């Protein structure tokens, strides 16, 4: 297993530098370019949720993104340390969405195979996103 950890502060200007670093790392994973593009959106949405909802726009807090590349799958763990939010209770919107909010959670759920919330932390949230490697695609 290969593991890489990225840490950013809770400010939207750090989203692009995170994506740029992630993009370089993901090139080595041999997932398709379509999958890699989806991972960037999914991780971006998760970090945006931490900035907007957990930290409520407050700057300077930590968001840690752990990427674990295994033979059969890739796992992203997005950890924040702010107020607890149970995203599993957030309803998936009906699409096509005619209101400008609520698309993020839908993109996350659609782009990844599995979403899990680690609720065991005393403080903050951890969202675990998994995508399985398609058979025959290295």
């Amino acid at each position, binding site marked *: 297993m290969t593991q890489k950890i990225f840490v950013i502060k809770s400010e*939207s*200007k750090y*989203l*692009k530098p995170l*994506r740029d670093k992630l993009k370089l790392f993901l090139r080595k994973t041999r997932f398709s*370019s*379509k999958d890699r*593009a*989806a991972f*960037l*959106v999914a991780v*971006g*949405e998760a970090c*945006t949720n931490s*900035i*907007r909802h957990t930290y409520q726009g407050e700057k300077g807090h930590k968001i840690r993104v752990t990427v674990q590349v295994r033979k059969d799958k890739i796992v992203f763990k997005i950890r924040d340390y702010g107020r607890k939010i149970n995203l599993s209770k957030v309803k998936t919107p009906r*699409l*096509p*969405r*005619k*209101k*400008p*909010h609520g*698309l*993020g959670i*839908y*993109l996350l759920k*659609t*782009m990844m195979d599995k979403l899990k919330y680690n609720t065991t932390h005393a403080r903050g949230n951890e969202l675990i996103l998994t995508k399985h490697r398609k058979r025959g695609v290295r």
Partner: protein
Amino acid sequence: MKIHIKSLQQGTELIALHGDLDFHSSQELRTELIKLADRQVSKILVDFKKVDYIDSSGLAAFVELFQRMKRYNGQMVLFSLSAGVRDVFEIAKLDSIFRLAQNEKEATSLLS
């Protein structure tokens, strides 16, 4: 994100976007798009050629513009979307609401 807005023929504005459309940049875009809708610009073309990334905040800015333009029967066409950006529109099923064109010529022809 750089946003260039150019007036074409009467009532048509061309918006050329350059950069990533994420939670950081979408607020600025949203402000510019709302200004156009407030002016009741009847036809808007959006050039995505230089946009490599869009997230739900970027999509939301266009959903809002679409809703505002609908009130005065305005028309919007997005064109030259990269495969990755088009995928995001398709996953959100917004390709069934928005008109997406291959290039500027096709986009212009879709405006009636």
